[in-house]
């Protein structure tokens, strides 16, 4: 029996992408699996045209893989495309919450400031599918049937949910309890069903060891994400990362509240080694405080530039592949990056020599929900909001060199207070115990009794052996 995980699928694993080197400085890897049971979806939308790409990190037997996705129209073969998972990973890494690193300058003399960053880029997946036979008798119409890449795809319409339910079960798809009711609701809303499973011959021929993402393009005024089948068999809250590409601006749900993820906070240095854990703990705390009823905004940015960039901007041809049909092929030269408000000016220029796409805006939303907290499908709208937002956390390295001027004394006096503030911020964000945080800070280069390094050599050695 195929285990049907629903739209938007349930069993998604999110692993974090390797940390991205920033401006030549490589910091660390957040290589822990960040979020379990997360799905990752890319939606490109302009006017009535929608392209939905469902990424897939399915780890089980490919023969067990199947998805059922309600779609508003019949999907023909040419409307389905196999997407390159690398592009989605790229977009994911580009839009993921980021950790930025600053070095305090020598309080006695200005020294070059460097920044580095890395991303907590989570990845994801999907599953599920169908077959054909006594369909007609059960009131199920197979509108289309074709194979694209390694997937056998059926587009079904049905008159009765019990027929569809029965037929899918006959074909070996194990639908969760309560699915029949939800199917009935979708049938009455004149939705069709996109059912995909893996064609093993094609999969072997393809030479891939993983299932590639499926993109589906359609033209319909409905702009929504059907999540109801997915909440039926979920154990506990599930995660969905929704990345949208639009021409106009930020995408928001119209029937759920959008909350910005906390951003711009100064956090202790040791978090660099456990950025994945930090983000995971923080996200869980925020989601729980909202009773899992909110959609968190993690990134909203004009694709023409980024600052700092968690990864190189996604090139226009790749955005086109993900459904941004309005982007012209002729690349334009990227404008100089503007500094973010509140961000200290950079010493190092970060102009990416990449041709930038114009007129595309990326929104990244992260939701953790249950069937109770998200009873309804997510209705979306494209707004005209082009205000940039990013989930960004800041580490400030204290100056550790020698310093023995008056300014240095003042500087070192302020440090313990600053460390304490960072510890409290981290405790508030994650719910971690403040005592543990303080211990880790002491071990991680932020002792609360920090003193300037003093050169203990005799003065003549200091003078002649510089």
């Amino acid at each position: 029996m195929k285990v049907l995980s629903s739209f938007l699928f349930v069993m998604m694993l999110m692993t974090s992408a390797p940390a991205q080197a920033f401006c030549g400085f490589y910091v660390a890897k957040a290589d822990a699996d960040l979020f379990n049971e997360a799905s990752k979806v890319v939606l490109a939308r302009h006017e009535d045209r929608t392209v939905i790409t469902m990424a897939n990190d399915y780890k089980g037997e490919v023969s067990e893989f199947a998805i059922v996705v309600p779609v508003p129209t019949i999907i023909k073969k040419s409307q389905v495309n196999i997407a390159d998972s690398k592009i989605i990973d790229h977009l994911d890494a580009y839009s993921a919450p980021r950790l930025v690193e600053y070095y305090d300058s020598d309080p006695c003399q200005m020294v070059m400031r460097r920044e580095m960053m890395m991303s907590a880029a989570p990845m994801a997946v999907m599953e599920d599918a169908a077959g054909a036979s006594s369909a007609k008798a059960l009131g199920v119409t197979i509108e289309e049937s074709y194979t694209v890449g390694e997937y056998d795809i059926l587009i079904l319409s049905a008159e009765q949910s019990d027929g569809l339910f029965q037929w899918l079960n006959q074909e070996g798809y194990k639908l969760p309890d309560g699915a029949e009711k939800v199917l009935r609701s979708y049938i009455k809303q004149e939705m069709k069903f996109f059912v995909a499973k893996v064609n093993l011959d094609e999969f072997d021929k393809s030479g891939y060891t993983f299932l590639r993402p499926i993109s589906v393009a359609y033209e319909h005024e409905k702009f929504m994400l059907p999540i109801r089948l997915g909440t039926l068999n979920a154990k506990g809250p599930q995660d969905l990362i929704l990345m949208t590409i639009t021409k106009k601006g930020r995408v928001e749900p119209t029937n759920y509240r959008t909350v910005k993820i906390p951003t711009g906070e100064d956090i202790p240095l040791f978090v660099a080694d456990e950025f994945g854990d930090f983000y995971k703990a923080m996200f869980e705390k925020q989601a729980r405080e909202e009773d899992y009823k909110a959609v968190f905004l993690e990134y909203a940015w004009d694709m023409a530039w980024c600052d700092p960039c968690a990864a190189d901007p996604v090139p226009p041809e790749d955005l086109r592949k993900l459904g941004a049909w309005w982007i012209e092929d002729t690349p334009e030269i990227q404008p100089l990056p503007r500094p973010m408000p509140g961000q200290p000016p950079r010493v190092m220029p970060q102009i990416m020599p990449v041709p930038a796409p114009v007129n595309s805006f990326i929104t990244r939303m992260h939701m953790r929900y249950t069937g109770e907290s998200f009873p309804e499908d997510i209705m979306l709208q494209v707004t005209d909001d082009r205000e940039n937002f990013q989930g960004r956390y800041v580490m400030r390295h204290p100056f550790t060199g020698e310093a023995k001027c008056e300014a240095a004394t003042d500087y070192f006096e302020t440090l313990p207070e600053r460390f304490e503030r960072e510890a409290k911020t981290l405790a508030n964000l994650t719910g971690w115990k403040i005592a543990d945080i303080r211990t880790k800070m002491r071990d991680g280069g932020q002792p609360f009794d920090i003193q300037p390094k003093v050169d203990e050599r005799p003065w003549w050695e200091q003078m002649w052996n510089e």
Partner: protein
Amino acid sequence: MGAVIRPVGTFLFTDARHLQIATLSSLLLFLLFFHDFAPDIKVVFMTVLSALIAQIFFCWVFIFNHRDAEAQSFYLKKLRVSVPLWLIKTDFRSPFITSLSLCLLLKANALWVFPLAALAAIGSKFLIRHKDKHIFNPANFAIVAGLIVFPDLVWVSPGQWGADIWLGFALAAAAVLVLSTARRGDMALLFLGFWGALLLGRALWLGDPLEIPLHQFQSGALLIFAFFMISDPKTTPDHLLGRVMFAAATALLAFTLQFEFQVREALFYALFATCVSVPFIDSVLKAKTYQWGNA
């Protein structure tokens, strides 16, 4: 303690609009402090100020027979301030409510849209009239005009508040309804009744669990719409039967737009359309026109 509170209390209860202003301002203040997508404070100032200036301007141009001018001059007399008669006759409460509603609902990525919207709202009240009543609810007019004229600048975020704020606001709005004993309080309830019935009917037809219509009902935009827009006594039919028809028609149209045509701003478009029918309803079903402050 009664002696201290009474003047404020009496003032609040002399006119339903005082309570409405108090409710809307509290909500706005709450959002400004605790909400991620609250309007910018600049937006609030510009919108409120523009609406008040527009009101003064239009009152100066068309010195209307404001029957509640006396109530205001009472307070001015107490303060021994002498102001020109047309200014005394200017009513500042309605533009205040209009601009607060606009701040709460209208979103735009250009600041200049807000004073323009406030001007359009107040202007519509003075310029688009039939007999003794204006046709459109001013805030609703400005929202629809904004959506149509600047589709690339203006939007409405109906899902912006959480359920907790929704509940608090719903209680406050209901309290205003009861306390103010406004004769036209029925309008909000009529509309919410029809709208709720349609949502419930849809859920029953689809076989959806009741959490879904309940969740759809928990929209902040719906509350502002019901309690502060469609219930505007100046733009609703005078006769009770007319109001029942008006509420039903608006709910049905909004429902069709929202679920059949996937229009996210369905409520506002629907009211815009049905408001045009009010003069016809009034000419068939005759009743006394509502006057503010006479509740």
